[in-house]
């Protein structure tokens, strides 16, 4: 059972992206990758009745992780503290985990033959060195990201909703999704509006995992892999005909946070 957990409060997030930068620095994440994204509603409503909510988004650290089930080589594993770790030396770049994860966390580089993923491991090395919190939670200037024992975080999530029922919708995202996770979100707006993946989620990971690992994964992931690589190569071919355009695409790809 997961020992650690996050509570992320969308009502507190100011979209400053300190967590994204901190994560990149702590984990030496390549400039073309990110382990955290900002999910957002965008600016909604009509001037001047406007709203905007954001929340940092990363690996949920499921209690019964689909990615670990899907990984045929043991590159993704759950450690003794419930952290889903990734070993790039074992990874063969099959992309099964990408299909298996209902939270759309693993991202691959499509232009590499041996593509690797880069995902949140709760700054496991940092914790082992005795620092109290992962880099994102440690630096958050508004405590939108809080870190602690999983059960405490879940209890705190419910307590906040109970204390301020008008401030939050009555839903702790991550409590039941995919059979439960170690990252809990509370929000003033439904999670679909924040852009969270909600359609693929069931409360039974076992069913989802069986589907992905036994039936779907090899076929679907295989075709997705072939298809996406094909699309990538086609795009690359097109871009090569127009190299200036290619430069722009590269520059854009550096920004992982696309607006509106």
């Amino acid at each position, binding site marked *: 059972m997961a020992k650690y957990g996050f509570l992320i409060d969308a009502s*507190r997030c*100011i*979209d*400053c*992206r*300190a967590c*994204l*930068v*901190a994560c*990149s*620095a*702590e984990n*030496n*994440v*390549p*400039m*073309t990758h*990110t382990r955290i994204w900002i999910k957002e509603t965008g*600016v909604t*409503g*009509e*001037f*001047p009745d*406007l*709203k*905007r*909510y954001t929340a940092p988004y990363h690996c949920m650290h499921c209690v019964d992780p689909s990615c670990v089930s899907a990984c045929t080589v043991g590159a993704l594993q759950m450690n003794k503290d419930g952290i889903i770790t990734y070993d790039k030396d074992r990874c063969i770049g099959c992309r099964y985990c990408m299909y298996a994860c209902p939270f759309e966390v693993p991202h691959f580089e499509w232009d590499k033959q041996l593509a690797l993923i880069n995902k949140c491991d709760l700054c496991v090395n*940092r914790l082992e060195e005795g*620092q109290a919190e992962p*880099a994102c939670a*440690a*630096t*958050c*200037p*508004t*405590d939108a990201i809080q870190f602690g024992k999983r059960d405490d975080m879940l209890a705190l999530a419910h307590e906040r909703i109970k204390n301020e029922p008008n401030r939050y919708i009555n839903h702790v995202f991550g409590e039941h999704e995919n059979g439960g996770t170690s990252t809990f979100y509370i929000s003033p707006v439904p999670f679909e509006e924040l852009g969270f993946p909600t359609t693929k989620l069931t409360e039974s990971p076992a069913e989802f995992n069986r589907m992905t690992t036994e039936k779907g994964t090899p076929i679907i992931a295989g075709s997705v892999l072939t298809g996406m690589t094909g699309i990538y190569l086609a795009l690359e071919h097109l871009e090569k005909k127009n190299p*200036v*355009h290619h*430069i*722009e695409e590269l*520059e*854009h790809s*550096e*920004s*992982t*946070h696309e*607006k*509106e």
Partner: protein
Amino acid sequence: MTTTVSRREFLKLGGAFTAALAVGQMLPPMVAEAARQSGYLNAAGDGFVPSMCEMCVWRCGLIAKVKNGRVVKLDGNPEHPHSKGNLCPRGQSGLMNTYDPDRVLTPLIRVGKRGEGLFRKATWDEALDLVSKKMLDIKQKYGPEAMVFSSTHNISQPLFENLLYAFGSPNYGTQRSLCFNAMIVSNIMTYGMEEPERSYDKVKYIILTGRNLMEAISTSETHDLSFAIDRGVKVVYLDPRFTKTAAKATEWLPIKPGTDLAFHLALLHVIISENLYNQDFVNQYTVGFDKLASEVQKYPPEWASTITGIPADTITRIAREFAAAGKYALAHNGWRTSNFVNSFATERAIAALNAIVGNWGTTMFPSSGEESGALGAPPQPPFPRVSALRLDGVPWKYPFVPLKLGIFQELRDAIVKGDPYTPHGWFISRQNPILSLPDRNKTLEAFGKMDFIVTVDIFLNDTAWFSDVVLPEASYLERYDPLLPVGDKAFLRQPVIEPQGDAKSALWIYKNLGERLGLGDYFQYKDEEDYLKQQLAPLGVSLDEVKAKGYVQLPGEGNEGSAEYKWNTASTKIELYSDSLEKAGFAGCANWEEPPQPAPGQFYLLTGKVAQQTQFATQNNQLLHKYSDEPRLWMNAKVAAQQGLKDGDWVEVTSEVGKVHIRLLATEAIRPDCVYLVPGYGHLSKGLTTAFGVGASDSVLHVSYTDPVSGSQALTQTFVSVSKIADAPQEKTRKPLYLGE
């Protein structure tokens, strides 16, 4: 032997130090011996070193994580009141500032035309000999006043000031008139101090006038505001844009630019006419209340409503709510408020609003300042007497502007006009006036008039690009600076890693240049550590102890929770009316000044910070670039549609002084009569390989307007027209086309 190198070759040379630093790879040099000696590292070289951030001027305490003798991460120092254990995105990216592949790591001497970017490497001896010779030549031919010195607020500023005052020049440029002159001068006239401190501990009601604290982050204050919101404090936020602060505020009022003054005058009107103010406090601690009362009599909410666009009953309600919160209310003085020439009057109205509800000692406190009598300093002789007038007109044209603030845009204009005299040299440290001053064409013209320009910086910012000599400073993770008092402690910035290449600290650069100029008596310290030891001498604390802790406790200082009810004004009270302002021909109380408005078809050009960048200095930081939005021109979505413009279109933005090309962001989050451009982009220096070609500079468009009382540049008083570019070849490279030349 000297060789001319092209920019490409130069960059190769510069890259030699960082060849191993492919993008995204950080392989810092070994940790500084100083940090090792501090005893914070074990034998294996693992541990944590406390120091201070310099990614903005808030100066959070940081803790650098060192592993195998290398710095791998920065975290906020929980013991520092400005960080409270947190760092903002800029603070988190600090490593990338130090390891920027574009760092200048050796002195450079220009060999091509100015602005061509052709330099050759030089030794420190050669570069400093050249700089001192040029400076002494100018002094001999034209007098010391012919050298202009400018630098942006930093901890080694006292030594920079030693250099300029010992040299004998009155011409001192800071960035403050582009930032907060109106706020500072207003506070001095009202409270007798530059900026009272705010406390959010007990606050119950906050009015933020354009103070976008969720994006213009001051870590601890952003944290405090966020927690105040969390416990249900009401926040009223005035801004023509729906910023990230607006998204968190209880009430967002998209006020018409330049009219914040009318809003605050009407608040004063309601609170005074309905007798809702704190009469005891007003009687005991303020002067000029009657004059203020009779002035604001003219400004009922109905009047303000037609000017601001905010309904009269909303203004009345907010005035009553603010007064009901009484001493628990806080009207934030902002830094620039609405950026119009009436900003000084706006600041005076805000100061009066705080005073009449009696929030002194509850949400507002005396500032502790950044100086402490408890610290020592090296001995030095008095400065030579300066008889020349200051080029920026302070104080002979602008009597209320403090000398250390000055008026930077007026200084630049005087250089262009050669009036009252012509300067010939410019010494610039850690500052980028080419990008920060309004009207970039004019700034380039001023640069063109100079015989000699020298810039101290860590990389080739736009100003260094146009300089004759570039002196490479060590980054904030590589150097010592003087101790900085904050509250009851003085904090230390210390080198966590050795300086890369030949980079040197400001303390070293000013001393070695000073000695060559014959001004060695003003720099009586052997090295950086000796300077710090002289600072610590009266306290009897060893430098090693301070290096290990990161700070030293100051005796009998700190004013947390205490408030002295005496102010450093002429009357020793809070001056709602100022006799000296009145005598100088200005309004004694805050009064209405009509701001200019855009012509039909034009827009107000708004500026304002984003959380991921600091002014004009950080756009080249790859970690920040990675997580920054593409800089675009915001326009109200409905207005854009009416003009036939789509989100993402390339547009030409034209003001009376310049034009830029940029992509459009069509959004609901801005008033229909405004457009907004994020500042700090549109760099001219090709030495900034990450930032060059990204976005457009709002300084190209800004028209220079100086507030006659405070000297503030009215940054929002620029009106622009926007038109679609039919054929947009720029799109290929995402580069804005600079049309100002």
